C-alpha cells in the first residue's frame, strides 16, 4: 500500500464523483420523462404551476451543480445570476416587446458574460473566500436593481409585471399547461447539454480541476480558462432559469432575488447530491415543498421544523439523493441476481 505520494495534498472540498455516476441510466431517464409528460393532464392548474416552478428551480440547482459538482467552485451568488436572467427577460418583454421565447437565449448570453467576468477575480479565491465574494454579489444585487438611474428600466422597488404567454397555434391548453411544456422542453435541452458538457473534453477539464488543481495544470489544462468558463456556463443556465421564473411568476422585483434564494439553491444541491445532475430536481422539490410542509406542521415554529427536517435528511443521506439512487441500484442488482 505504499502509494507514491510524497505529500498528502489538501483534500478537495468537493468529493470526486466519477463522470458516469453524474447521470441516470437510459431506462430510468425515459420513465421520468414519460411521467413528466403525462402528469399535467391529470392535475389542476395550480399544481401545474408548482411543477413548472419545480423544473425552474431544478434548472437553477443544476447550474450550481455544474459549478460546484463539476469544477469544485463554491457559489453563494447564484441568486444574482438568476436575477439578471429574470430582469433581462422582463425588460425585453415589457419595454421592447420581444417574444418571450427569444428572451431566453439573450438572458443566457448576458448571464454567461456576467458570470465569465465575475469568474476572473474569483480565480484567485477559493473555499471560504470565494463563498464570501459570491455572497457579496448576492447581497449587492437587489440593491443594484433598486438604484435610481436604473429605475426607468427596472421599475425600482416596485419591480415589473410580466405578461404570461398564451399557447401558440391555437393549441387547446391553458397558459399554465403551455408554460409547463415549454419549460420542460427547455429544461430537457439544457439537461442533455449539461450531461454532454460534463462528458466532453471541457467536462473532464472541470473535474480534473475539482479533484486536483495543481495536477490538472501540470497536465496542460488551462485552469484559469476552465474555471471562469464553469462560472460562465453556470451563470448562463441560472440566467435561463431566472427568465423562465420571471415568465412563470409574471413578476420581477429586487427583493425576490435575495441571498435567501442563493441559500435555497445551495440546500437543493446538497439534498440532491453534489455532482449528481438528476438529483437537482429532487433538491428543487425539497426547497419548494419542505418549507410548505414545515408551515403545515407548525406555523409559529416553521423555521425550526424546516431545520429539523433538513437535519433528518442529511443524517439519513449525507450524500443526498445520489446516495438513495446508488442504494436503489445495488438493491435492484441484488434482486436480479436472485
Amino acid at each position: 500500500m505504499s502509494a507514491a505520494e510524497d505529500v498528502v495534498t489538501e483534500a478537495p472540498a468537493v468529493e470526486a464523483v466519477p463522470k458516469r455516476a453524474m447521470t441516470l441510466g437510459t431506462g430510468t431517464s425515459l420513465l421520468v420523462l414519460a411521467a413528466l409528460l403525462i402528469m399535467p393532464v391529470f392535475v389542476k392548474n395550480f399544481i401545474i404551476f408548482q411543477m413548472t416552478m419545480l423544473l425552474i428551480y431544478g434548472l437553477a440547482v443544476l447550474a450550481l451543480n455544474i459549478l460546484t459538482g463539476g469544477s469544485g467552485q463554491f457559489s453563494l451568488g447564484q441568486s444574482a445570476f438568476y436575477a439578471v436572467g429574470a430582469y433581462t427577460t422582463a425588460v425585453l418583454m415589457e419595454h421592447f416587446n420581444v417574444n418571450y421565447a427569444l428572451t431566453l437565449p439573450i438572458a443566457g448570453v448576458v448571464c454567461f458574460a456576467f458570470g465569465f467576468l465575475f469568474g476572473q477575480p474569483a480565480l484567485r479565491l477559493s473555499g471560504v473566500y470565494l463563498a464570501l465574494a459570491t455572497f457579496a454579489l448576492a447581497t449587492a444585487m437587489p440593491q443594484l436593481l433598486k438604484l435610481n438611474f436604473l429605475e426607468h428600466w427596472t421599475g425600482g422597488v416596485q419591480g415589473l409585471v410580466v405578461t404570461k404567454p398564451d399557447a401558440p397555434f391555437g393549441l387547446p391548453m391553458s397558459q399554465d399547461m403551455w408554460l409547463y411544456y415549454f419549460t420542460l422542453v427547455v429544461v430537457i435541452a439544457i439537461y442533455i447539454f449539461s450531461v454532454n458538457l460534463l462528458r466532453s473534453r471541457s467536462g473532464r477539464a472541470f473535474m480534473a480541476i475539482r479533484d486536483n488543481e495543481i495536477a490538472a495544470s501540470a497536465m496542460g489544462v488551462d485552469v484559469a480558462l476552465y474555471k471562469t468558463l464553469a462560472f460562465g456556463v453556470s451563470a448562463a443556465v441560472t440566467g435561463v432559469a431566472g427568465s423562465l421564473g420571471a415568465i412563470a411568476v409574471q413578476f420581477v422585483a429586487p427583493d425576490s432575488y435575495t441571498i435567501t434564494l442563493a441559500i435555497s439553491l445551495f440546500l437543493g444541491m446538497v439534498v440532491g447530491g453534489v455532482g449528481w445532475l438528476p438529483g437537482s430536481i429532487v433538491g428543487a422539490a425539497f426547497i419548494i415543498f419542505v418549507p410548505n410542509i414545515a408551515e403545515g406542521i407548525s406555523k409559529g415554529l416553521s423555521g425550526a421544523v424546516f431545520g429539523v427536517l433538513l437535519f433528518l435528511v442529511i443524517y439519513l443521506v449525507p450524500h443526498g439523493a445520489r446516495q438513495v439512487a446508488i442504494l436503489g441500484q445495488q438493491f435492484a442488482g441484488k434482486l436480479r441476481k436472485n
Partner: protein
Amino acid sequence: MELFTNQVLAGIATGAIYACMALAVVMIYQAIDHLNFAQGEMAMFSTFISWQLMQWGIPYWAAFVLTLALSFVGGIAIERILFKPLAKAPILTNVAGFIALFAIINSSAGLIWDFTIKQYPTPFGSAPFLGSQLISTHQAGMIGVTVLLLLGLYFFFQYTKIGLAMRAAASVPESARLVGINTSWMIALGWGMASAIGSIAGMLIAPVVFLEPNMMGGVLIYGFAAAVLGGLTSPFGAVVGGFLVGVFENLAGTYIPGVGNELKLPIALALIISVLVVKPAGLFGRHIVKRV
C-alpha cells in the same frame, strides 16, 4: 477634516461590535476549519438567555457569568448531538447543517421571546466617553472587553497545552491523533469556546442594536468579513479586521456618492475582496507554506 475624524471614531465604535463577533468566528474556524453560519444565532440565543435571567431578577454580572457557562455547555452539546454524527459527511453537507441550525435557533427564539425589540442594559453606562459624542462609555467598554478577550485567547492558544492541542487537531487531524490528541473532543471544546465568546459578543452588542431574534444577521456577516480580512488564522487580525471594516463602512457611506445605507455592505465586502485578491491569506493571516 473634523467630519473625517468623527466618521473614523464612529467607525471604530461600530468596529468594536464586528471585532467581537470576528473573534468568535476565528475561534470556531480554528476548531473546525470552516465558518459556522449559525454562530450569530447562537450568540443571539445566549443573549436572550441572559436577558431572561435578568428578568428573573438576577443582577447583570451574575447573569453574564451564568450565560457564559451555559453557552459553553450549550456549544459543546450542539456539537456532540448535532454535528458529531456528521463528522464523516462532506463539508457541504455540514454547511447545510449550519443553515438548518440557523433556522431552528432563529425560529425557536422567535416563538419563546417573540419578535418585538427589547431594551438591553449596559454595565458601562451610555454617557459620552471622554467628552466625545461619538463614542459612549459602553462602546469604550466594549472595545476594552474585546481587547481583553483577544489577549486571553492569544495566551490560551500560544502558551497552554490544550490550546496547542486544539490548533494541532484543527490543522492536521490525523497527525494530531497520532500524537495522542482526542481530536473529536477538541472540536467540541472549540464549539463550546466559540459559543461562549459569541455570547459575550451578543451581550455587548445588544445594548446598541437592541435585542430581537434577527439582531445578529447583519453583524455576523460583518464579523465574517472582518475575520476573513484580518486572516482567519489570527485572532489579532480578526480584531484589527473588525475595526477596519467598521471604519471602511462609515467612510464609504460618507464619502462615496450614491452609497446609502443599503449599499454600505456590498461596498465594504467588495473592498475586502479586493484586499483578498492581493493578499489571499488576509492581512495578518499566516501564509501557509505548502510543499507540493
